[in-house]
């Protein structure tokens, strides 16, 4: 049994947690990522940390030392991405990904985090699995 002050403290903690989530997170949460088109038409102030999402352009993935280079596309716009560190295993060309980082002065997006965005379609693997072309 939790003592009475403990319970009140727990209630306050839960409410404060909720308030913190709402105020702190909602700003960035409602637009979780920007698209390449938005980034190109409204370039962010240099150094502003944003998330960028789009389809990993097939054939664009290259590995260069600890860097992974690829392009993200959406609605005909493309942005080149320079990712530091390995993307997750599910990262594939032709699938969606969201990267987090800053747009560099050379127009290349410097990312240090990449997450894979998958759709709501579920299919069994093909009998002969395709070779992983992402790595």
């Amino acid at each position, binding site marked *: 049994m*939790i003592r*009475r002050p403990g*319970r*009140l403290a*727990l*209630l306050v903690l*839960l*409410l404060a*947690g*909720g308030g913190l*989530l*709402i105020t702190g*997170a*909602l700003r*960035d*949460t*409602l*637009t*979780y*990522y920007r698209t390449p088109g938005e980034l190109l038409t409204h370039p962010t102030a240099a150094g502003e940390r944003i998330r960028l*999402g789009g389809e990993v352009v097939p054939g664009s993935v290259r590995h260069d030392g600890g860097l992974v280079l690829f392009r993200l596309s959406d609605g005909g716009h493309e942005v080149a991405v320079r990712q530091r560190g390995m*993307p*997750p*295993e*599910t*990262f*594939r060309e032709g*699938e969606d990904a*969201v990267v987090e980082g800053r747009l560099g002065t050379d127009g290349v997006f410097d990312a240090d*985090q*990449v*997450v*894979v*965005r*998958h*759709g*709501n*379609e*579920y*299919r*069994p*693997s*093909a009998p002969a699995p395709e070779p992983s072309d992402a790595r």
Partner: protein
Amino acid sequence: MMRTSIVELTVDSPQGAAARRTTGWTAAGLAAGAGLAGGLLAPADAMQGPAQRLMYLHVPAAWVAYLAFAVVLVASGAHLLRADARCDRFALAATEIGVVLTALTLATGSLWGHLVWGTWWAWDPRLVGTALLFLVYAAALALRRALAERAGVPPYGDPRVTRPVAVVGIGGFVLVPVVHFSVRWWRSLHQQATFLAPEQPPIDPRMALALLLAVAAASVCATWLLAHRVVRLQRRLDAARAAQGRRPVRSDPRRPAPVG
């Protein structure tokens, strides 16, 4: 022909116990079927691999949590309108089930996100909304305890405790449609719904079968737990009132707790 309603399921009688037992075994059978279908029959997803099987835990947990909060909404409303203490016990039991299932949704979703997205957590509308849902209903449980302690009464059965809690239970439901439609209203990392989508995207029929079985199993299991909890709460309240020397609400002799 078995015709049981949720009210019959919560009657503290041999018939009620038998109905609860039947519900429990139905849940176990459906869960076994869902386990076999999800673990063996359904193929692993082409893009996500075996991690996609977490869907058979994550989606039922989320859907049944929504259902539980809908029960909280209806029972809390009925409690406020009709001052029926029984409705409050339904609301309490459903809140507990919903909070546990929301925690399970967050846990399985986090693991699934780690395996497929490459992150345990993202500040995404669906994820933040689900966390808020958890906090609001956990706060309703905490509020119930705090008010009961302050008034020196049991956490259920006293309107000074149950009425404010019912208001929280009703208000919290606003979040359910927000969470459900968050993936349509806002740009999200989380994928869209598959079954509850306006246009159904393709899903392998074996995966669909496993998912529907898992949702059915979770729904029946939650109903079973709800019925048990409501009966247990009623008994505890009766025992407390009898101990206080007041008029017992029910007069039938105490029987050992039937299982089922």
